[in-house]
């Protein structure tokens, strides 16, 4: 049976309890001073990696958590170390905006550098809801992907994953290497023990830049404007089709 070298990719997002505020220029979300935390789906990915390490003890050679972001993202890496991940690495991109494609390229370079054979990611980030990074990464690596996983198990050299789909649950399996993205019901993340948080405070972190990985960051998308969703929709009751058409014309929908 091959050894497992697990890579977990995490993202630092606005804390999930906070309501996003749009900046006055309406070009994006105002994050200044707000509490930022690990993306909840990424937290579940970290937890899954730790559980695999605990249940498959002898088989797991290495667990590594990686994030691409500003230097403040160190905080979520240290939290993951405190929970039980062995190593952490920060890809410092300063204050640049990252699109899923760039992140997927950075992760691909990291996978090749670290020789990982199991990548666990959150299915989507709660700020952009893109749901793209996992799929793009799998395609670029040419690996099988299991998205929205709700159960992960190992049978010999195969990984067996149950996914939640619209119709119910689907169970798939494939040999390693593979990419798994986590859904909400996969597990409940543990709390970091304070003693371990204290040790993780001084733990060494790997630091890289996109140039070190040979991946230039290019952004292909430009955000034109950001607006609040329409909060009140009017319900207009109409009596018959003629009135319906008349109302639509008044509202300039026809």
């Amino acid at each position: 049976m091959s050894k497992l070298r697990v890579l977990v990719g995490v993202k630092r997002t606005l804390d999930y309890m906070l309501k996003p505020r749009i900046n006055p220029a309406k070009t994006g979300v105002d994050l200044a001073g707000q509490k930022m935390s690990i993306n909840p789906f990424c937290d579940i990915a970290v937890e899954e990696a730790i559980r695999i390490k605990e249940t498959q003890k002898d088989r797991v050679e290495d667990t590594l958590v990686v994030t691409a972001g500003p230097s403040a993202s160190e905080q979520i890496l240290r939290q993951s170390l405190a929970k039980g991940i062995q190593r952490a690495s920060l890809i410092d991109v300063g204050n640049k905006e990252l699109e899923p494609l760039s992140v997927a390229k950075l992760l691909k370079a990291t996978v090749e550098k670290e020789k990982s054979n199991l990548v666990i990611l959150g299915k989507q980030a709660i700020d952009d809801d893109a749901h793209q990074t996992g799929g793009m990464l799998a395609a670029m690596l040419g690996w099988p992907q299991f998205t929205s996983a709700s159960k992960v198990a190992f049978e010999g050299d195969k990984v067996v994953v149950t996914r939640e789909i619209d119709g119910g649950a689907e169970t798939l399996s494939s040999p390693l290497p593979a990419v798994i993205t986590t859904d909400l019901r996969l597990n409940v993340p543990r709390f970091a023990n304070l003693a371990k948080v204290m040790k993780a405070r001084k733990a060494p972190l790997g630091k890289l830049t996109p140039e070190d990985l040979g991946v230039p960051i290019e952004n292909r998308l430009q955000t034109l404007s950001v607006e609040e969703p329409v909060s009140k929709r009017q319900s207009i009751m109409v009596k018959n089709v003629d009135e319906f058409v008349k109302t639509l014309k008044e509202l300039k929908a026809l």
Partner: protein
Amino acid sequence: MSNVVRTLGGPLKTPRYAFCKLSLKRSSLLFALPKIKAQCFTPMKRIQVRRFSHSRFVQSNELMDNLKKIQSLEREAEDVDVCIVGAGPAGLGAAIRIKQEAAKAGKEIRVIVLEKAAEPGNHSVSGAVIQPTALDELIPDWKNEPPRHCTPVSSDTMKFLIPGMQFPIPVPPVISNKGNYIMSLAELTKWLATKAEELDVELYPSFAASEVLYNEDGSVRGVATNDFGVDSKGLQKDNFERGMAFHAPITLFAEGARGSLSKSVIQRFDLQKNSEPQTYGLGIKEVWRVPDENFRNGEVAHTLGWPLRNDTYGGGFMYQFGDNYVSVGLVVGLDYPNPYVSPAAEFQRMKQNPFFAKVLKGGTCLEYAARSLNEGGYQSIPKLVFPGGALIGCSAGFVNVAKIKGTHTAMKSGMVAADAIVEAFNTGDVNKPLTIDAYEENLKNSFVFKELYSVRNMRPSFHAFPFLGNYGGMVYSALDSYLFKGKVPWTFSHKKGDAAVTASASSYKPINYPKPDNVLSFDTPTSVARSGTMHAENQPCHLFDSRPNDRQDAYRMYKGVENRFCPAGVYEYVDDETLPTGKRFVINSQNCVHCKTCDIKDPLQGINWKTPQGGDGPKQTLT
């Protein structure tokens, strides 16, 4: 204060206090005119305690039993030099000062700061207009890189409100804000936290200190953090993590007003013995972002009068700072007798007055917060030092109510405590619990006590004169601030604590508060959502009611006062046909915004506010 009385026979430390004798007895004799009988009584005596054998109350016994079992489990322990509970201005001020002074003395002192909020500043609530006295002393070059949104005060106004109108009133010199700065206390706290981490202070947010640990001789050994992963019945969940214990020769309690551990320590060491009971106010505020045409940067405004009645102390405030931010709020003294008053509802309707409405029109409300604050002043300062520990900041109570400022005094108290600690580490044996008497001595000689002494009569004057209520207070305060400046031989006393003053609902009529219009005023669920408050599911309710059997009688007497004093809708009386009054007392602890008003104002004094899991609670950044 009481110490001064005792040393009258011998040499006095500070001559100017020589005339402050028998202050308590004398003043109550002078003003022994018949006060309005507000039908106060001690609830303990009047309410019959009836045993309900209802299954609900069996449940709470089950919870307590299970929690006891967990309490007997071993904890991992860590030895540190100084343990500070609470990363607010006092706690962080003390931590920073210890590190600064230790570096000067060439010593290493390990300082740990525990904070229940997810990030320092998330639970910090204040106006705030900061007097930079303590900050200038702690970090003299702070202005080179000030906290975000820090704005120097440009103008100072006071208004008297009546429905629909406002009148200007002169700003007394004692509360003039020249040279002060408007900023968000959350931002200041975050800024102080960064400075503390730079000095290698070990700061652990998301970990609440939930228990004080004692040595065999009764001195404080340290504190322990809360257990994680306990379900609502008190049983261990899969992700259970036992809390950690910190042992230190000195533990500073800097939890803010009515801190939960501070309350237990004050009771245990009887620290309030020679002082009057602490009295409190409840401050409720919102932070708005308003359009350019309404915004007047650096303006500080305070209001008196409407919507509060003559028997309810309080006033509004509106500070404009930073990036078109307006901090608007209302402080209500919790010694109001009318159980139908709802401070949160008063705040919501206050914003309808044109003075506020004109500024807020077209703006967006960003955050909502509420926090209780000390109003007892000089008369209520407890003994500060006990074996192994000390109280700093609002846990003791140094708010200057006349100026409505407590941050500078809190920080200074932290700094004076820090100096005493470093001195003890330099000279004495630190292998045993320290009693830092030097802290209390030096603080008495600092500007903190001098300031509080000079304004000691202003707040109590609002209930010192029978029939005059707030008007009496305003007249006296004007005299005191322009003429006397506190140099008088009398000291007014507070009434008994805020809870005991609550009168029966039968003396009053229900107040018809206007419905929220969702433009300027909002309902409680919307406001609570704006505080970002969250408590992890399936954990024990952190609000312990030690008198659940008496809530039926409490409802008969006060008609649901618990629902009205809480600004977050935590306490409710829901319809229940099976109970004698038709109402059942329900606690929705998930809404809690950590203001501690319930602990203060519950007429039964049965509600005990304890820390929930670390990281829970509000996530405020602009308050």
